[in-house]
């Protein structure tokens, strides 16, 4: 049976050149970068080279890169670190409702610590309106954090515009760019951001290596205290093989970015075009301003999990959106916040394409997915409509 991986937003396979770059650091080059003898110095040199190419991918300086173990850690670090560093100036933060849980839950934690948080809405396409950000600013606002691109609905936000507002008002701005870095061009200067989170496994690098960009001169309270690693801002012996892998993956992403975009976008457009012909199915997120390899839908009258299982049985691997939907069987907060009714949000399904995706894969998908929907709708208790649900008048519009 064919195996088709359409869940690149969950993680990417490791690029073979990345693996080759990492392998020596599991074997002979095992030194601790802080050690002053030769094996340590070699590890340190590799670490600093990785920092340079990682910085270059987002047009930052290498000293502005703090390596972390995950995008979630980078997001926690950004919010807590900036909130604590600036609490004498004010205790108000602004985030959007369509953030990743590593932002939303950190914001909720900070609320319990005495900070006030404004959660901004997004429109039906998942776009946060920059003027809403401006209106939410108070004299107490110390941080704005808006996601660059949603892994769930693919929408790319107007960060440059929001960043310009923050800059003009003298407020620090962070963006969670985990889903975007390596997939679309990202430049910290044209985005006008002070902090930016990104992770290697979203651009064919390894898991366990990610980074927080912190603009030079921005004070931040460390999340992890201990040694002098990462300039004293993130203690702990560095995961040298993974960081070396991140550096190599960043170098390849920078070199091949446009080629990668062209490849996935052409195939993604075919997938969206074909899938949109199915009755009672709605593309979620922005129709144009979205990640190039990203297609997300809500399918009426059936559940996302059922689609996932039947697709997996046909060798197609994809996701149903957030962990809320796939693990807790709750409606996704992101979909609810963009106005998708909760019963429709249950039918969420997300397909994300990558460099290994082929024309044949999409053709096979395009033949298989309509059959699966049709089969599930035959056994759905709502096959004839939403009568009896909490909002039977509201259906996805084609």
């Amino acid at each position: 049976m064919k195996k088709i991986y359409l869940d690149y937003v969950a993680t990417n396979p490791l690029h073979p050149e990345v693996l080759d770059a990492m392998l020596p650091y599991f074997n002979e080059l095992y030194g601790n970068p802080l050690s002053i003898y030769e094996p340590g110095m070699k590890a340190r040199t590799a670490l600093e080279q990785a920092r340079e190419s990682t910085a270059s991918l987002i047009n930052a300086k290498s000293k502005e890169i703090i390596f972390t173990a995950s995008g979630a850690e980078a997001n926690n670090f950004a919010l807590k670190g900036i909130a604590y560093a600036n609490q004498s100036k004010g205790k108000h933060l602004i985030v959007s409702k369509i953030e990743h849980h590593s932002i939303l839950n950190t914001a909720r934690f900070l609320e319990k610590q005495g900070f006030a948080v404004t959660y901004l809405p997004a429109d039906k396409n998942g776009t946060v309106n920059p003027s809403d950000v401006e209106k939410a600013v108070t004299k107490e606002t110390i941080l704005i954090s808006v996601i660059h691109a949603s892994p769930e609905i693919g929408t790319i936000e107007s960060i440059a515009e929001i960043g310009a507002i923050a800059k003009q008002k003298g407020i620090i701005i962070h963006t969670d760019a985990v889903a975007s870095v390596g997939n679309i061009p990202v430049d910290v200067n044209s985005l006008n951001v002070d902090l930016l989170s990104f992770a290697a496994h979203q651009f064919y690098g390894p898991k366990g290596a990610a980074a927080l960009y912190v603009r030079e001169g921005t004070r931040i309270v460390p999340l992890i205290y201990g040694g002098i690693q990462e300039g004293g801002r993130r203690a702990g012996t560095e995961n040298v093989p993974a960081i070396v892998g991140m550096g190599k993956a960043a170098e390849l992403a920078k070199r091949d970015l446009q080629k990668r975009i062209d490849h996935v976008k052409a195939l993604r457009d075919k997938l969206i075009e074909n899938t949109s012909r199915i009755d009672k199915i709605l593309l979620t997120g922005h129709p144009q301003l979205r990640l190039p390899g990203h297609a997300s839908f809500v399918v009426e009258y059936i559940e996302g999990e059922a689609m996932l299982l039947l697709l997996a049985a046909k060798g197609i691997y994809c996701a149903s959106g957030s962990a809320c939907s796939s693990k807790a069987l709750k409606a996704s907060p992101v979909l609810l916040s963009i106005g998708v009714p909760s019963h429709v949000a249950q039918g969420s399904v997300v397909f994300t394409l990558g460099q290994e995706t082929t024309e044949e894969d999409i053709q096979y998908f395009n033949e298989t997915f309509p059959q699966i929907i049709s089969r599930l709708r035959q056994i759905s208790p709502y096959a004839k409509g939403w009568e009896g649900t909490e909002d039977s008048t509201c259906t996805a519009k084609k």
Partner: protein
Amino acid sequence: MNEHTQLKFLNAPINADSTTDIIYMMCPMHLLTIEEKIREIKNGQVLSILTDYDGALEDIPAWCNKTGNEFMGIYEDSDHYKFYIKKTKELP
């Protein structure tokens, strides 16, 4: 704290040739940073270190004493200290 490392508080900040901000960084970042930054300035120039680490009150004057550089004093700002060091000796 010995006789050579007595604290000297200033009433006003001093103009420095180089300033480095390590607020929220803990030990030993203040000492590593001084070493790095003092190498970047010329003899006679002034380095300012901004830190909120209390241990620096003892460590920075002691470092100056040990390395033969002039500890000019500390200005206590609202939530951090400003340490001033005049470079009077090249580090080995």
